[in-house]
């Protein structure tokens, strides 16, 4: 039996137990952006996985939607200290997207339409810990929240859950992303309060 990540599927605990240190609860869904909201026509949207050997796997929107779908309910934690409990998503597990990808890489760099990037160890994307989500709360994911599709990796601070996701580059060496090169923590575990560099 694998480890069940906090807030996902396991028995619901009190809200207090589900609040990482220094966080407060919100009911709304704040929008934080580092740039203009990209508008990506679905007939031109694609998701790609680029391996360290130079191979690229691509999915069109229709191919992406045809993959097995999951509906995770997860708690999300923003580094600006808000936490939102029991958010409901629909999307494709990274386990599915990476199933046929041959790689020995240890690191992943997520890249988005609009130029945003974020980095994390590849193992943090596997074993039911991450999804490419295209629906939130029963509706199509709005552009301001990352639609058409965004990464959801709820066990790390939410800046790792890149909006407008376009692909994943698999790398042998870690390559810090947008906020990780500007003072934010390279890993971002909310339960260890890893907000800034050196935390």
């Amino acid at each position: 039996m694998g480890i069940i990540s906090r807030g996902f599927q396991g028995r619901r605990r009190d809200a207090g137990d589900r609040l990482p240190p220094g966080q407060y609860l919100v009911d709304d869904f704040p929008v934080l952006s580092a740039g203009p909201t990209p508008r990506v026509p679905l007939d031109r949207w694609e998701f790609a996985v680029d391996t360290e050997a130079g191979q690229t796997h691509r999915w069109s929107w229709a191919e992406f939607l045809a993959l097995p779908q999951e509906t995770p309910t997860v708690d999300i934690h923003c580094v600006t200290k808000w936490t939102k409990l029991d958010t409901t998503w629909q999307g494709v597990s990274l386990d599915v997207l990476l199933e046929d990808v041959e790689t020995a890489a240890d690191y992943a760099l997520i890249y988005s339409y609009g130029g945003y990037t974020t980095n994390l160890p590849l193992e943090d994307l596997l074993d039911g810990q991450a999804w490419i989500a295209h629906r939130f709360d029963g509706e199509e994911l709005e552009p301001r929240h990352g639609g058409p599709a965004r990464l959801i990796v709820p066990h790390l601070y939410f800046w790792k859950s890149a909006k407008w996701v376009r692909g994943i580059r698999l790398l042998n060496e870690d390559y810090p992303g947008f906020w990780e090169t500007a003072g934010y923590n390279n890993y971002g575990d909310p339960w260890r309060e890893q907000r800034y560099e050196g935390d």
Partner: protein
Amino acid sequence: MTAEHLDGNALAGPLGEIFAVDVTSATGRCAHCGLTGPVASLLVYGPDPGLVGRCPGCEEVVLRVVRGPGAAWLDLRGTVSLRVNLPD
């Protein structure tokens, strides 16, 4: 200007903590498209998780400022130069 971003004057406070001069009145050159103009004319996204100043011409990142406890991080890689007017 849309509600999505602020103007460059939003940078005055955080940059004022770092620099002795008012950098928002300095003239910057975008490293991506070469457009020059006052820092106050940047399109500023934020303030959280950090301030991101984008070129009003090409929307590429010109500067970023993150203020954490006990430290600020300033990224100027999108800036070729800053002209700061000073007395003789």
